[in-house]
Structure formats: C-alpha cells, structure tokens
C-alpha cells in the first residue's frame, strides 16, 4: 500500500491530524508556562474531578434505583454524594468561568475553547435541572409542576415535557451526560492544543513577557534544576 493511498483513507487523515495538532508531549505535558503557577488555574481540574464523582455516584444510583436511594443508609449516602459532588462541580466551574472571563481567555485563537466551555456550562444546568426532576419525591413533583409553565411558554414543552418522568430521566442519565462529557473532552483537548491563555501584557508591550525561564514543571522547578525538561 503506497503512502499516497494511505493519505486518502479517513483513518490516516485522522492520525496525521492528531499527530500534528496533539503530539503526546502536548497532550500530557509535564511543564506549563510560569504564569500557570497560581490557584486560579486549579479550578478547571477541580471541576473535572467533581464531574468524575458525579458520574461514579450517578452510575451507582442508576444500578440500585429510587427505593434504595430513598430508604437505605448507603443509598441515602450515595444520593447525598451525587448531590454534593454536583454542587461542587458547579461551585468550581463558576470560579473557573469567572477566572477565564476576567483573563479574556478567548484571546489567541482560543474562541472555541471558550465556546465549548460555555456550552458545557449551559448543558450542565440542564443536567442538574433534569436531575432534580428525577429524584422521585415531592420536590421533583413540585419542580416539574412549577417548571412546566415556563417551558411551555418558551415553546419547548412539546418535546421537552418536564411532567414526563421517563423522558426527564433519560435526558438526565443519557443525553445530557453524553453532551457534557463530550464537550469536556473537546474543551480539554483544545486547551492542550492552544495552551493556557497568558495574562494581559504590561501596558506598552505586545505580549506577556514570560522571562528567560518560561516554563516550570509540575513541582514548580525550571528546566535544568532537576525537574523534568
């Protein structure tokens, strides 16, 4: 098989694109620009960690069912774990959003990174809303009866019926998690491709000056100081 033949195949094109845009050293880096050495850059990773707990506890709940999560001690604990990990997911994600907004993190050809993060945030709100509708208790009935009028007024009630428990459950445990999960993966890959946005430059300069030691490894060491280079 000639090289020319390989290039017309979709698998070869995908491989070449991945090698070009996301080489392994960029996909799993061991050093970052010096300006990343701040707590404000931690909240994206914290959001993903919380999302992992949301998924794990959600899978556990889906295996055992509502009688279990409403009556047994462990079920109540896992139910609370799911709620509080979702609360932390939003808590961290909002701080991440604020940080990136004030940095204008869409600069430097990073618009799609910003867009995928924003849409993931909106989809997460839908996931949380359908989660409250899936509790199988009086709170979920109350939220459904209160929410239906607003959604009907918005014209979406015909295909997004909050009084239809089965539909809301499937949105919550299948459709929304797939969308949010896929957007998070794309978002992280875009961050890896374009890098973390640098701070605003000092007035009079065109770019942020990273200095002679522009990168630090995961332990804060510069190249040549025993760190991974």
């Amino acid at each position, binding site marked *: 098989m000639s090289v020319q033949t390989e290039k017309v195949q979709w698998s070869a094109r995908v491989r070449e694109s991945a090698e070009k845009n996301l080489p392994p050293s960029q996909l799993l880096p061991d050093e970052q620009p*010096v300006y990343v*050495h*701040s*707590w*404000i850059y*931690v*909240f994206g990773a914290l959001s993903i960690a919380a999302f992992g707990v949301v998924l794990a506890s959600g899978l556990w709940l889906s295996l055992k069912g509502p009688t279990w999560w409403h009556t047994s*001690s*462990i079920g*109540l*604990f896992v139910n609370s774990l799911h709620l509080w990990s979702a*609360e932390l997911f939003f*808590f961290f994600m*909002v*701080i991440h959003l*604020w*940080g990136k907004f004030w940095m204008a993190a869409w600069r430097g050809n990073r618009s799609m990174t910003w867009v995928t993060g924003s849409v993931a945030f909106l989809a997460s709100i839908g996931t949380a809303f359908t989660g409250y509708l899936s509790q199988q208790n009086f709170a979920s009935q109350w939220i459904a009866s209160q929410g239906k009028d607003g959604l009907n007024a918005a014209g979406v009630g015909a295909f997004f019926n909050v009084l239809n428990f089965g539909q809301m459950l499937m949105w919550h445990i299948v459709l929304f998690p797939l969308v949010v999960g896929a957007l998070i993966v794309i978002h992280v890959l875009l961050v890896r491709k374009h890098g973390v946005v640098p701070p605003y430059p000092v007035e009079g300069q065109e770019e942020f000056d*990273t*200095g002679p*030691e522009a990168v*630090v490894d995961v*332990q*804060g*060491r*510069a190249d040549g100081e025993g760190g991974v280079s």
Partner: protein
Amino acid sequence: MGSIGVTFAGWLGAMVNLDHPAHYVHWGWFQISTANLVVILLMIVVFVLALFVPFPGRRFQ
C-alpha cells in the same frame, strides 16, 4: 452504613434544623434564598483567595 456513620449523620443533621420553610432575603424586586446567597458569597471569597493566596512551590520569573 455502619452505626458510626448513622451517628455522624444524625449529629450533622442536628446541627442545622432544616425542618422549616426556606429563609429568603428580599430587596425590592430581588429575592434569593439565604442558602443560595451564602453559596454565591462563598464562591466570591474562594475566587478572591485563589487570586491572592500564594501557590505552593517556587515561582520562576
């Protein structure tokens, strides 16, 4: 969950009595539950701390 877990859950539940209608803060047209207001204020506090608290390890510049 073991007896320690049940005891801890009971102790934690006894700290905050939730068996009442939610508290709300009301300014003119604006209304928000106290719980939501506390969460928003906490997010602002953590955001400011994240900006100013030094990150562990040396910073090279």
